């Protein structure tokens, strides 16, 4: 059976798996972004900079852990099905977003924060008007890595019942049907590329102009 024949015969199933993969990704990304940035904000509060620094080194090292290991651990402790798959995606996806947001906020120049405080910004204003906007490019970089990682890891998460495009790849492997495997691999790759482009565009949109001007 050739590739085109497979696609035309299984059109609806492929679309369904695509949507499943996408929503798996979207849900995990939203959760990781909110939780990740919240953790970073907490860890970079004044007086807690040391916690922030520890978090940066821990998440820096954790990025080296292979995704399959995280999935295996979740399988052992939580079991099989959609929820364990989502848990694995969130846990693994949190690493880059926390790493980038924390180091981004920590690298906002000390004098900018001091000037803000000295002029009468409240703690909350220092965070939302100074720290976050200045760290936006780095935070967005973290969100982009997290997005790419979640899409890739979601493929593997299908082995513990996550569903999505991973199903096509593993079925293709088991039954030795290259066309099925190629469809799954190609679609997940295309999805990753498109989403990274969308996020790059958002990054451009929300990065303050003053940080981009030529000197």
């Amino acid at each position, binding site marked *: 059976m050739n590739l085109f024949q497979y696609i035309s015969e299984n059109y609806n199933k492929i679309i369904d798996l695509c949507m499943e993969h996408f929503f798996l990704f979207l849900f995990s990304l939203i959760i990781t972004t909110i939780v990740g940035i919240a953790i970073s904000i907490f860890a970079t509060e004044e007086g807690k900079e040391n916690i922030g620094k520890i978090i940066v080194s821990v998440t820096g090292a954790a990025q080296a852990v292979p995704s399959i290991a995280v999935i295996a651990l979740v399988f052992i402790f939580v079991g099989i099905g959609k929820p364990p798959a989502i848990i694995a995606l969130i846990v693994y996806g949190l690493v880059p977003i926390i790493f980038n947001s924390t180091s981004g906020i920590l690298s906002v120049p000390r004098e900018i924060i001091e000037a*803000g405080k000295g002029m009468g910004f409240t703690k909350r204003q220092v965070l939302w008007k100074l720290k976050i906007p200045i760290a936006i490019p780095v935070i967005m970089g973290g969100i982009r890595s997290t997005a790419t990682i979640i899409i890739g890891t979601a493929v593997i998460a299908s082995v513990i019942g996550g569903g999505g495009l991973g199903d096509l790849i593993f079925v293709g492997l088991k039954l030795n049907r290259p066309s099925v495997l190629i469809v799954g691999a190609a679609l997940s790759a295309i999805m990753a590329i498109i989403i990274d482009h969308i996020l790059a565009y958002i990054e451009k949109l929300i990065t303050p102009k003053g940080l981009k001007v030529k000197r």
Partner: protein
Amino acid sequence: MSTDNNSQENNKIKNKEEQEKSKVKEYTIELKNLTKRFGEKVAVDNLSLNMEKGTLTMLIGPSGCGKTTTMKMINRLIQADEGEIKLNGTSVYDIDPVQLRRTIGYVIQEIGLFPHFTVYDNIATVPRLLKWDENKIKKRVEELLDMVTLDSSYAYRYPLQLSGGERQRVGLARALGADPEVLLMDEPFGAIDPINRLKLHDSFLEIQEEIKKTIVFVTHDINEAIKLGDKIAIIRAGKLVQYDYSAKILYNPANKFVENLLGQDRSLKALTLKKNKDFVSNEGVITVSKDTTEDEVLKLLQKKNQIIAFVLDKNDKLVGRYWLEKAKKDKVEINYDEEPILIEQNNTLNETLSTMFACGEKLLPVVDRRNKFKGIILLDKIFEEFNK
């Protein structure tokens, strides 16, 4: 005879002192028995200091002497361990720190302009925190840009697009945003190259003459302290060593430490206390408008028996200089400089002297920060002053 003179002199001094005592002084900032420890180290040690309204007080001392800590306790960026700080009679501990800081201008060495804000938004920071009306803010920003001699086109630039000197000017304008009575400045000109620093000093002094704020200015540069300060507070290891008017410190250093701080060339430094504007003269100065032709200038100069004429535009800004040169016997040539060497009215005699030596001129034109012609200054006058 000489003893008589001395006693008369003493009486005079006494009278003066009594007069000063009888005047009720208005203190804007009162520091009383301030102490701050960082762990074992005592950063500020039982320090008391009163700063009068409208004066520029310099805090000077070696690094780590506690001068910056002292300043930061005023706007409560650092909490004092012991002692009292009063602002216009009210303890700063009775005011919410955030509200307090909105009423005090603050400039730091690295300036800390917000890179994602335009120049306009930077200057508008405190007025916006205080919820001023946008129209009022717009007027205030324009006024401040003009005050620090930045063109209004700068309003929509970003800090990354400015030079170091321009950033410093914006930093000062931002600190003055909501027209605070008190200004705290922590080595604001420390990171600027020497030439621009001189210019900024002069503009800053001129601005202070206009606005008369109560300013606390931290520095480690004794020349800067003498040049800018009305009064100087010398701090060492958290303790106040001497606090007085600049001239008094220069002529009567309290101890060896102050003497060393002032350096060897105290008589030359005394020239730093004198500003050009007190020695400007307009006697025999010839100014012409831009439209005057060379021939007319030549005739005018020969008639008045002078060799230099300054060219001013409609707004009295100095734009050029004509000067006569004897080329051959009886033949006189007229020359024109488009960018004549000039000095600012708030330059010190010291600086003027070195400029004169550097360019070999005995006479220099004096301008204000907007380049407006004020008159000339002569080398002879400086020597007269030096001989006093």
